[in-house]
């Protein structure tokens, strides 16, 4: 039983680290703001959730688990909403997504604001 819990905790941590790393590579490598935000926004929530679940499995203390659960719930609520608000603000301020028509790096200013 102990081995199973330890194994699953390690697996969750590993998966979470992998997701976080892929988000990090995404924020460096992707061509414009919206794709970068896609990479970060998606992996941030799931990666953080996986790491927190992995930590929860490591510790039998109930107070610690409740605190971790609070952080997990907050991350699940806050992270997507922050991404949503960020994308909305960028779009409203005329940051145009990269498409076939305008192939400049980092998004360009639109001609019709």
């Amino acid at each position: 039983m102990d081995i199973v819990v330890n194994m699953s905790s390690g697996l969750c941590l590993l998966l979470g680290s992998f997701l976080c790393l892929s988000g990090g590579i995404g924020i460096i490598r992707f061509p414009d703001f919206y794709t970068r935000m896609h990479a970060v926004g998606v992996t941030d929530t799931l990666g953080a959730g996986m790491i927190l679940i992995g930590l929860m499995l490591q510790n039998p203390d109930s107070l610690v688990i409740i605190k971790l659960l609070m952080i997990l719930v907050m991350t699940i609520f806050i992270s997507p909403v922050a991404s949503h608000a960020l994308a909305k603000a960028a779009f409203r301020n005329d940051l145009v997504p990269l498409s076939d028509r305008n192939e400049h790096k980092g998004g360009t200013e639109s001609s019709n604001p």
Partner: protein
Amino acid sequence: MLIAATLAILVVMMMAIIRGFIGPTLYDRILAVNMFGTKTVLLISLLGFVMGRPEFLDIAIVYALINFISIIGVLHFSDSAAFGNDPHDTGSTKKES
């Protein structure tokens, strides 16, 4: 495994700092700060376990809340009329390209 996860988080934090420096738009920097904040929450929770001090989790909760508030604040002020409609920070883009 905890150490490996901590190292991975540190690498990702480095990547976020790089993106925060090279920009090029303001929103990239905000995104980098947001990502950095989330990763700090994770780093502090992981460090609490590595060092055997679970009271670090209180700080992680504060971070999760404060991070949200500061991101909302930044977006609020970037929306406001005082800044006009220029999403690009002219200074560093000129240097970069």
